[in-house]
């Protein structure tokens, strides 16, 4: 199951975060802000210390967490955490990127690199997560 989604701007600030499950850790907004910028830093360090050209942290898998990060070529990072065993999150992350391109960037009142407060984006994310959660449950019960 999906746990949490956050979006980090190209300058490293947290611009969106959303709980996707009741089992996600309950952190304050400030704690998420710190986590977001810390992840941004780790991501750049990972890209810098890699022996070959690297795009930074893409996946982290631990015993009780799976984290996947998609960075657009414009430098915005979409990070999704999920329970271990959840299949690849690439499609969901790309879906969220499309929603961002549609409902955030095309909203004329949205200013670049500022926190995302767009209801249409929020609703789109909710629909996307709901649809994918349903599909996951169905795939699990079929198996």
């Amino acid at each position, binding site marked *: 199951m999906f746990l949490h989604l956050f979006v980090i701007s*190209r*300058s490293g600030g947290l611009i969106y975060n959303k709980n996707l499950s009741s089992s996600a850790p309950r952190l304050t907004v400030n704690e998420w802000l710190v986590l977001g910028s810390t992840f941004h830093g780790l991501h*750049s360090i990972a*890209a*810098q210390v890699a022996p070959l050209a690297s795009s930074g942290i893409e996946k982290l898998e631990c015993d009780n967490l799976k984290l996947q990060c998609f960075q*657009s*070529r*414009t*430098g*915005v990072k979409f990070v999704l955490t999920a329970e271990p065993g959840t299949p690849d999150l690439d499609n969901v992350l*790309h879906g969220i*990127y*499309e929603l*961002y*391109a*549609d409902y955030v*960037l*095309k909203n004329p009142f949205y200013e*670049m690199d500022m926190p995302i407060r767009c209801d249409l984006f929020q609703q789109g994310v909710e629909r996307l997560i709901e649809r994918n959660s349903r599909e996951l449950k169905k795939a699990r019960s079929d198996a």
Partner: protein
Amino acid sequence: MSSSSSRSAATRAGDQAWTKMSKMNAELFNLTYGAMVMQLIRDYEDVQAVNQQLETMGYSIGQKLVDEFLAKSGVGNCANFREVAETLAKVGFKMFLGVVVEVTAWNAEGTAFSLQVYDNPLADFVELPPQYSGLVYSNILCGVIRGALEMIKYQVECRFVKDGLKGDEVNEIRVELRQMVDESFGEEYNEGA
């Protein structure tokens, strides 16, 4: 051989992206853009200022439009500036304006090229009156290109060198690469390491 096959791949990607995009009435688009340019001329009363303003507006559009392009065109990473130019012309212009654009006139260093826009959808009904002969009517396109490329780290300068509205046979936009932007750590950080 390989370059001609990659060209056609870009053209195919452009056609696919174009079919996926939602379409709008071309006349509404033309008339809206025309009304906007005319309003700018009334507000600024100076064609140079209008040219500048159109470029700035395009720049803001490009900065936001590039993510739409990356999210929906499905093109992969570009290895070099030449691929960027091909992708911009064959996929970008096709996807958003539905027109075919050719990349020509590369300089020897591979840092500057021209885009030949045969059919400029912004200017379908436009005849430039003599008192506005300094107006670069479609200058917004230069801004869009500059904004979009800057977001993917190519800082370019962009200008119309031929304009169909001024009697040239084709519209030609010159794009020159100034530098690559690397915002991750900054140069001084790398040197210290």
